[in-house]
């Protein structure tokens, strides 16, 4: 692939010697944004004594939790786009090459994806803020899940798949495919992995496939970057799963909040 193509996108994916790329930063630290915005959503209202005062106003009870989620999601959306625009502006000044139309589309898609990713963590943090009495407990619970899914899921996934489908010895050749598939499936439980996969695909047009590529599927392929639509098609399942995760998380928080006693 011609390296001068999609130069602008490299701004987001290139890392230096001592610094991670923008995409890595978002993948790793984005969850913290969601957790920060959500971990004290309900329990703080409760401990402040404002929740029962709020609930005594002529509003539906679910509007409280809806507002908490929507406010957080709005802030996240604004944050990702501000960051993205800053990054693009700085890049424009530094390299002086304007982004092509396709690059703009890819960046917007990436930023939307990041917003959804952070909203997943926001929803998780709101669940804990409903369930846990203290904001500190909720924060620690959310952070431990974040650490587990971001750092240790990889180890767990390879551990499990190596136990079930060992790749040593003669039978290892037969297990290799199953081992890899299981490893990938387990990793994809983590929103971190999903997001990294999707972000790589959308920011790097030369990624043609995710998952296993066999010799037969490569043979005869044209060595050219994927068009935007095709990249989008590749990550479509990732996006849907992440939206579903956020929606499911919010639904759990919603139901448990509606069943809770209002009293402090």
């Amino acid at each position, binding site marked *: 692939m011609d390296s001068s193509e999609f130069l602008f996108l490299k701004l987001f994916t290139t890392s230096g010697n001592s610094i991670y790329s923008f995409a890595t930063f978002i993948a790793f630290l984005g969850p913290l944004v969601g957790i920060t915005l959500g971990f004290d959503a309900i329990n703080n209202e409760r401990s*402040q*004594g*404002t929740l*029962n*005062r*709020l*609930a*005594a*106003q*002529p*509003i*539906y009870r679910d509007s409280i939790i809806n507002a908490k989620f929507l406010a957080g999601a709005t802030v996240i959306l604004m944050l990702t786009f501000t960051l993205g625009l800053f990054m693009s502006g700085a890049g424009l000044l530094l390299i002086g090459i304007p982004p092509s139309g396709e690059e703009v589309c890819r960046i917007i898609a990436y930023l939307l994806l990041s917003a959804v990713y952070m909203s997943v963590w926001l929803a998780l943090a709101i669940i804990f803020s409903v369930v846990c009495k203290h904001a500190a407990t909720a924060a620690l619970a959310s952070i431990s899940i974040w650490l587990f899914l971001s750092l240790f899921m990889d180890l767990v996934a390879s551990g499990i798949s190596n136990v079930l489908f060992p790749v040593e010895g003669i039978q290892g050749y037969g297990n290799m495919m199953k081992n890899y598939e299981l490893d990938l499936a387990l990793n994809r439980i983590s929103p971190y992995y999903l997001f990294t996969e999707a972000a790589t695909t959308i920011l790097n047009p030369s990624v043609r496939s995710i998952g296993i590529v066999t010799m037969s599927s490569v043979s005869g392929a044209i060595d050219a970057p994927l068009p935007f639509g095709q990249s989008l098609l590749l990550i479509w399942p990732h996006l849907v799963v992440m939206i579903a995760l956020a929606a499911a998380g919010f639904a759990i928080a919603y139901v448990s909040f509606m069943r809770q*006693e*209002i*009293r*402090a």
Partner: protein
Amino acid sequence: MAEPFIIETKGLTKCYGEVTAVDGLDLTIRQGEVFGLLGPNGAGKTTTTLMLLGLTEPTEGTASIDGFDCTRQPLKVKSIVGYLPDSVGFYPDMTGRQNLIFTGQLNGLDRELCEQRASELLERVGMTYAADRKAGTYSRGMKQRLGIADVLMKDPKVIIMDEPTLGIDPEGMRELISLIRELSVRDGRTILISSHQLYQVQQICDRVGIFVAGQLIACGRIEDLGRQLENEGNWSLDLQAEPNKKELYEKLSDLAGVKRIEQDATGLMRIESSRDIRRDATTLVMETGCILTQLHQRGGDLDEIYHRYFEKAGESDERADGGKASGKLRSLFHKKQASGQ
């Protein structure tokens, strides 16, 4: 008292698992009344107020305020009922005024009206001097006053206050009581106060209901409740005489109708009897050659009424379930004695 009923509950019941917090409550409160819901901690007062606001669903029975069903039409109810929770809180990073305006906007009032009303109410509760300070810096008494302003933002027909006098200094209490009076008399609002502080409630309430273990065991005007107790043959007399002679004590004990005499360190005797013994007691004092220093017929104040009703409820409980509660106490006491030996 020809005003229509504004709050009505019928067989209102709330169970938490095995525990019945409120048990078949039938309560009617007329428009413009100040009603005191009295009871010890954990009697189900807060649960009742939450059910009236539609914040908790009753297990059985119905409650309605101004014709609106509290469970089915909570929004209608909440737009005419102001609720002051027992530990009222405000957003600490907003000023008192902003907190009030926020409440007003939640009630669907437009911004200008909110600002105007917030200023008026801050003036009325005497908080204008701190209106533009962050609510996080407020003291407990200031929060309570802001809480009242907050309740009035929606111009409610009915105000429900949960332990409004908790943790307020005596001066603040006096102001609060006059404010509550004013809300009732001048504005004609119906006020329901739940409390266990009898003295304050006695000062402001038209009627009281005594609430023990989820049941309303007495309800009515304070004087009526006192009279009712007397008619049931429960008289209580404080008597003190000088010098404090043992003879007097014995003679008083022998009087017909005297059920119990307790004497404290100062020689003050509390005599419980089934009839009015004032005449006989004074005669006895003179016969023994003592000087009467104090004679007080109890029963008029709420403290006494409350205590009596509480005692009565306890007794009937004891009879009903074979003295479970006091039996427990007794066995505990015996255990202690046994271990002491």
